[in-house]
């Protein structure tokens, strides 16, 4: 049994959601289809369905992220679950041991699901491996490894605007090296059958193995976004930057910042995406971020429906396991 298979129960249903790696097109499509049904909930008088009534979902955030935590919290509440928010300072000693102690304590409070954000790669896997069998774990971002719910909400946004993935050219621009989002996006785009996935970045912000992930590599923005249908801008992760990988933010913008003039190289109906929070004037010009081709705020709305889908599917797989 590989590590990835702990995501699935014996019927092949999604029990944890830790990484896109090891999943298949059918499952990803099921997530997108289920999310489609949840989008309507936000527009009703009562913005809630009773699906996870009585379940306790714990947002276990070892790394700050108000936005991601908030969308998970809204998603859980729209499913009628009870939500605990825990922001845990990782600077404590003996991380492994305190983490397990924390888990045991929360399990004693009958938590049904952990949503985990951690600065270390593999943290969510670790928690999934050490949780009680009836507990589901969702990865809300672990180190440089993966951020699968963000990738799925991006896929949802692309599908809403462009329909099928086959025939699409998608460019991911910026700090690929430090981006768990990019890694998850590339996996998901390829699984869903995207014709061409491009990454555009300075050499210092590209991981060495990137070509093995099934992408075309560009170092020039104009060249890279020529005729693409979707442009995904990544945030310049200043807090992750170690050493002098870049001369200055200003120079980065000169070379890799998305401006209206540069955007013209893409297809006229290309959409511009960004996982947020955006650094205006660093990776993207305000005119583009607020412009007609930007779908950045839609990503946030869709993120709630996608997280509702993933939460209910993983909790549902727990139910199934018990019934058979």
């Amino acid at each position, binding site marked *: 049994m590989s590590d990835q298979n702990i995501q699935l129960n014996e019927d092949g249903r999604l029990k944890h959601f830790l990484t896109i790696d090891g999943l298949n097109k059918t499952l990803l499509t099921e997530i997108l289809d289920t999310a489609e049904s*949840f989008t309507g909930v936000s527009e*009703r008088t009562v913005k809630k369905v009773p699906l996870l009534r009585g379940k306790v979902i714990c947002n276990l955030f070892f790394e700050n992220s108000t936005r991601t935590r908030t969308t998970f919290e809204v998603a859980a509440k729209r499913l009628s679950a009870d939500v605990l928010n825990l922001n845990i300072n990782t600077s404590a000693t003996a991380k492994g041991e305190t983490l397990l102690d924390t888990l045991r304590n929360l399990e004693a409070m009958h938590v049904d699901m952990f949503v985990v954000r951690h600065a270390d790669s593999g943290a969510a896997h670790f928690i999934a491996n050490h949780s009680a069998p009836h507990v589901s774990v969702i990865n809300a971002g672990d180190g440089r490894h993966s951020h699968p719910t963000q990738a799925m909400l991006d896929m949802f946004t692309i599908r809403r605007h462009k329909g099928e993935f086959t025939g699409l050219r998608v460019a991911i621009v910026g700090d690929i090296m430090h981006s768990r989002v990019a890694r998850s996006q590339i996996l998901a785009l390829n699984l869903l059958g995207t014709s061409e996935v491009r990454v555009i970045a300075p050499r210092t912000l590209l991981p060495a193995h990137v070509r093995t992930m099934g992408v075309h590599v560009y170092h020039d923005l104009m060249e890279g976004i020529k005729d693409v249908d979707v442009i995904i801008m990544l945030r310049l992760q200043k807090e992750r930057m170690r050493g002098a990988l870049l001369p200055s933010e200003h120079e980065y913008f000169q070379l890799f910042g998305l401006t209206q003039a540069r955007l013209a190289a893409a297809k006229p109906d290309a959409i511009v995406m960004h996982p947020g929070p955006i650094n205006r004037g660093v990776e993207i010009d305000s005119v583009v971020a607020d412009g007609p081709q930007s779908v950045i705020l839609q990503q946030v709305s869709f993120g709630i429906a996608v997280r509702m889908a993933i939460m209910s599917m993983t909790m549902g797989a727990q139910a199934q396991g018990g*019934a058979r």
Partner: protein
Amino acid sequence: MSDNKIYMQAEEIEGLINEMALALKSRLETNRITAPVMIGIHTGGVWLAEKLHHKLALKESLGTLDISFYRDDFTRIGMNPEVKPSHIPFPVDGKHIILVDDVLQTGRTIRAAMNEIFDYGRPASIMLVTLVERSGRELPIQPSVVGVRPPLKLDETITLTGPEPLGLVIGKSKKHARSNETD
């Protein structure tokens, strides 16, 4: 699957739907409801509702409900992998609603549907129309208009197949199987 037998075919079902439309009209007149709206429950209920909606020439577009998010057996059987969006294209507040489903058995689907409708607003009334009413009720729910009441054994299921042509098929129930069609 080999146990399945056809109970009724398209032409006969069409006849039932015509009778149901007439019964529904007179029922609406008796209750002095002049501008009702109609909601079909996925999947079979929507097929039936489309036909009734057309025959009654209702002004408001047809609404559709997928009650997967309101099922009472989620913790037992999990998420329906083929959930469809619910779509109610009109405000529900103060409306007289005709709720349409294919088969009424336990009544649990109808309970779930009513719960969902109330999350859209407060209707003036809800009346239930089903093609098939069968034994096995577990909740106090009763239809206003019914197409047919076939005598069935407890371990028999009846399913509407479609959308074109419609058919009613009798089969044997499997324990623990998802019972979307027969609720």
